[in-house]
């Protein structure tokens, strides 16, 4: 009883602290959001009663090919996701079910890419792409990421945790290697696939430096690079337009996040802990 009595103010303070920090953290986002929906003369001075408008978005939409940028990002992210899932699943399955002399050493080598991501090697990778003639293509942006050490590592961990008995039972029933993979391993690893999928989608939706280097045209630029090209021209001229473009470009991901918040957070946790 006496302990509770002592703790009450502390708990209240913690609550206030938590909320103040939360407000501090979202305030920049809310303000950017507010600016995007108001005429540009209010960007410089906040006025709660200023009129709301969609004008900025309309102007942004017509000023730059954002629809095309979204399309490019969509194609890029889907390509990367599908290829990564297939390639990493194959590799992880090999490491778990078909070990051979040296495959452990090979796995250690694969892990190097966890540390040295393709964008660190951008000068050499740019040269490689130019040699094979894939500069300024969506495939060119995607290629260095298709074999993901993180994916191989994650799927291998998951496959290893699947009981051997299940695999043997399937084999006894006459299933071949491919069937075992598709009917036993993949379905049981579904939570890992979802977790990995969300992480990789958000990573590549947001990726900037490598696409910036590789792309040079409207037809290939993903939304991050498109936003930057637009913002460089508008900066300092009209902040309402820049924030509107920013809000526009992050909207799909943020809406998806708000809808699937729980899965997102859990996925990031699951992908991270193992």
């Amino acid at each position, binding site marked *: 009883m006496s302990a509770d009595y002592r703790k009450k103010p502390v708990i209240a303070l*913690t609550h206030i602290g*938590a909320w103040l*920090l*939360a*407000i501090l*953290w*979202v305030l*920049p*986002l809310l*303000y950017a959001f507010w600016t995007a929906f108001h005429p540009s003369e209010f*960007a*410089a001075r906040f006025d709660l009663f200023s009129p709301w408008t969609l004008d900025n978005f309309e102007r942004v939409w017509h000023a730059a090919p954002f629809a095309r940028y979204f399309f490019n990002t969509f194609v890029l992210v889907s390509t990367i996701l599908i290829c990564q899932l297939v390639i990493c699943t*194959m*590799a992880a*399955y*090999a*490491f778990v079910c*078909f*070990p*051979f*002399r040296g495959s452990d050493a*090979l796995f250690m*080598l694969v892990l190097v*890419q966890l*540390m*040295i991501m393709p*964008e*660190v*090697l*951008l*000068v*050499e*990778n*740019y*040269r490689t792409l130019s040699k094979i003639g894939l500069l300024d293509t969506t495939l060119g942006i995607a290629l*260095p990421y*298709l*074999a993901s050490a993180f994916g*191989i590592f994650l799927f291998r961990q998951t496959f290893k945790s699947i009981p051997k008995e299940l695999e043997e039972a399937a084999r006894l029933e006459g299933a071949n290697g491919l069937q075992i993979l598709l009917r036993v391993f993949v379905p049981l690893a579904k939570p890992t696939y979802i977790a990995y999928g969300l992480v990789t989608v958000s990573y590549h*939706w*947001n990726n*900037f*430096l490598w696409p910036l280097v590789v792309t040079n045209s409207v037809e290939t630029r993903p939304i*991050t*690079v498109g*936003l*930057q090209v637009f*913002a460089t021209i508008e900066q300092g001229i009209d902040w309402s337009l*820049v924030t509107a473009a*920013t809000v526009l*470009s*992050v909207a799909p*991901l*943020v809406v998806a*996040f708000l809808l699937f918040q729980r899965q997102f*957070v859990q996925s*990031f*946790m699951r992908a*991270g*802990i193992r």
Partner: protein
Amino acid sequence: MKASRNVLYGSLLLLPAVVLLWTFTYQPILGTIIDSLFSTARGKRPAVFVGLDQYQRMIDDPVFWKAMINNLIYALTTIPISMALALVMALLVNSRLKGQGAVRMAYFTPTILPMVAVANIWLFFYAPDYGLVDRFLQIFGWGGNNLLGMPETALGALIVITIWKEAGFFMIFYLAALQQISPSLLEAASLEGASYGQTLRRVILPLLMPTTLFVSINAVIGAFRLVDHIIVMTKGAPDNATTLLLFYIYQVGFGYWDTGYAAALTVILLLILALIAFFQFGYADKKVHYR
């Protein structure tokens, strides 16, 4: 029989991954090291072997040292501060809190935004006179400054953004670890009459050590890998006050097209990342013992 079958299937399944990893990770690593020993080909002059000249040039290059020091400052400030904040956030969200979900979302949302978007928003906030940050500072009489334009404050301004964006990301890992701590341990501590501070120091923090290690490794890699905000906000200005190593590589490689020198700089970055990897492997064992 089984062994040869494993070799056949195993290598076929691994083929696409191995080819891609070779082309875009190992071959470029080797290529970078080799290129760093050559001069940059210009026009009709082909690249010639110059030995360690590029490295000599690097030692004499004040911008390189500036980039290294900046990156060190950047890492040593963003990492501890955002990790400490992340821990606090996780502890707050994990306690019984009114509006827990909303608070967690508030902390986490900056994380899912692309750095380019974050940088553009903050460029607006940092605008002198009418930007959000400057108007806030005006209250204390420190207004009217272009924080991104002054050598003393520019790097600090970028550090603030990074912390704002990363803390929520690290929070998630702490939160996951906190939720795995068995309630009976905490009950035991409270039965023993331990105060919250004691429980935190003696029970919670030691149990979070593996997470702290994991998060710090990720944070260090991030500090050397992510330079999107530099490209958007300052391009290294003013006077290289915000040049980080990878940004300098980007500038040398794609601004001046000096690929030989860019390769030498990349070798340094690779060495730093390798050092982190060794450190991680050294500690990975301890982590296993711990569990």
